[in-house]
């Protein structure tokens, strides 16, 4: 782990002569990557915020203000700096607190994501533990969960009781745990190829008391494909934020991602569709009739996926594409806006699994191999 090397500290001690003539030894911890030394005197949280914001700016660290705010708020026991009382911010930090601030903020100089520095982050109404190299949940994925929940409420679809969901590539467990929290009857399964992520998902499930309703399998949808048939059946919802970046995008990732997050969680191959195609190939086997698949994808994907499904997976029917909300509206009157990336797709396994049955009740029709 190269970042550990850069953060090795060295102690520098010097003699400080006071005006009275007395000599006092002072020791400073100096992280070797050029981080500022811990101040000798006392400092308030507000001052620390300012000092570190300036350090981040000087070192070209992105989001300098938010970084220092998130880290220091976390050390003060809060989630946001806005929720810390003004009085607390103006108080002197203790020696230990100051050292903690310096220790954590120095990590940010190596472009470690804030979520890995404070080892947690929020996803919708959950606080999840974060640990490198497990992929950090993105805000867009919160909208995916919202979409799934809204859909389940409005269009129940398959009438399986209890409803079940399968997540492919669960990472830290964000999507599954969020669904479990919102739907008390739901049972969740998850497939994850990274042992680190499997461990983290299970840890997060325990911390939230949801471990009884989430089963995480350490499996790779591509490499372990032959083990898949029969593993799951009658799943109501298959959901995934699979690796979907194009290979060319992998080359231009910011350091926060390229240095600290698992590349396999991002790389979807040349056209970004390797994992997605595999999921869609295996899905009909897992899904109940009227079961649905929800995928987060790259904005360039929906049309490609639709065509591919039509040509290759006759058991599935493309339902819709939804846009995410980050329509980039610029502040000026010239709106660069309505660049609304098409980001999620919904695919359904229709009830009429057998093409011949076009009318009449098919509620009990099942694929032959279940």
């Amino acid at each position, binding site marked *: 782990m190269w970042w550990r090397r850069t953060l090795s500290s060295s102690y520098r001690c010097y003699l400080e002569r006071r005006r009275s003539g007395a000599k006092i030894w002072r020791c400073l911890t100096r992280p070797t990557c050029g981080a500022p030394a811990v101040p000798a005197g006392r400092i308030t949280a507000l001052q620390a915020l300012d000092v570190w914001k300036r350090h981040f700016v000087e070192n070209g660290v*992105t*989001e300098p203000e*938010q*970084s220092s705010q*998130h880290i220091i708020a976390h050390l003060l026991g809060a*989630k*946001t700096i*806005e*929720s810390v009382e003004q009085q607390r911010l103006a108080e002197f930090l203790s020696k230990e607190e100051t050292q903690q601030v310096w220790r954590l903020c120095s990590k940010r100089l190596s472009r470690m*994501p*804030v*979520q890995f520095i404070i080892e947690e*982050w*929020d*996803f*919708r*109404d959950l606080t999840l533990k974060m640990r490198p190299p497990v*992929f*950090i949940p*993105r*805000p*867009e994925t*919160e*909208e995916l*969960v*919202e979409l799934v929940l809204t859909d389940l409420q409005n269009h129940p679809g398959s009438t399986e009781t209890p409803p079940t969901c399968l997540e492919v590539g669960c990472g830290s467990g964000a999507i599954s745990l969020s669904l479990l929290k919102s739907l008390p009857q739901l049972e969740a399964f998850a497939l994850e190829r990274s042992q680190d992520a499997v461990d983290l998902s299970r840890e997060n499930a325990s911390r939230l008391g949801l471990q009884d309703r989430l089963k995480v399998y350490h499996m790779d949808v591509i490499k372990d494909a032959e083990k898949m048939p029969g593993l799951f059946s009658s799943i109501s919802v298959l959901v995934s*934020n699979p*690796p*979907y*970046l194009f290979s060319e*995008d992998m080359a231009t*990732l*910011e350091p*926060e*991602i390229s240095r600290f*997050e698992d590349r396999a*969680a*991002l790389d979807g191959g040349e056209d970004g569709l390797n994992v997605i195609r595999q999921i869609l190939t295996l899905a009909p086997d897992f899904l109940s009739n009227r079961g649905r698949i929800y995928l*987060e994808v*790259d*904005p360039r994907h929906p049309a490609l996926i639709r065509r591919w499904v039509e040509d290759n997976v006759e058991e599935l029917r493309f339902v819709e594409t939804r846009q*995410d*909300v*980050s*329509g*980039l*509206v610029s*502040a000026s009157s010239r709106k660069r*806006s309505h660049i609304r*990336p098409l*980001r999620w797709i919904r695919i359904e396994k229709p009830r009429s699994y057998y093409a011949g049955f076009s009318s009449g009740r098919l509620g009990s029709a099942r694929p032959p191999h279940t």
Partner: protein
Amino acid sequence: MSSLLPITSSLLGASRRLMWRSTPGLSPLLRLTPPAPSWVVAFGKKDLPDLPVLLEEELEEQFVRGSGPGGQATNKTSNCVVLKHIPTGIVVKCHQTRSVDINRKRARDIMREKLDVAYKGELSELVVKKKESVLRKQEKRKRVNENLERKRLFNEALAVDNKPGDDTA
């Protein structure tokens, strides 16, 4: 001020969307809405079922997440949501939590409260206060003019008195 009356009566009847589109001249009036938080809270709590319905097509949402692609390719921690209600120009900023989704929901709740104040403020306190202040100004002007007139007459009378009677030494 009588021109305000037909407009206020249309506020009551028509659907809110049409209402705002046809009365753009009222926006300056709305910006006088005092930002006092206690006022907003009072309306919110009392009138929860009556809070205006937000129409998504009237809202403009902006995330301060920087430019460029989103999704897996970026990892930004800024999650401030800026919500603008196009017809009224009211803007709400929310970065209360670390979840963008929750911030979006809260921004909409705050927007509903602000719109409620804006609408109700239109019909009651604000309009009445404006009317009163205008009336007061008119009264004041009238009084000032009357005083000036009285002084003028007094001075004229003095001038007339002083001219012939020069023997009062």
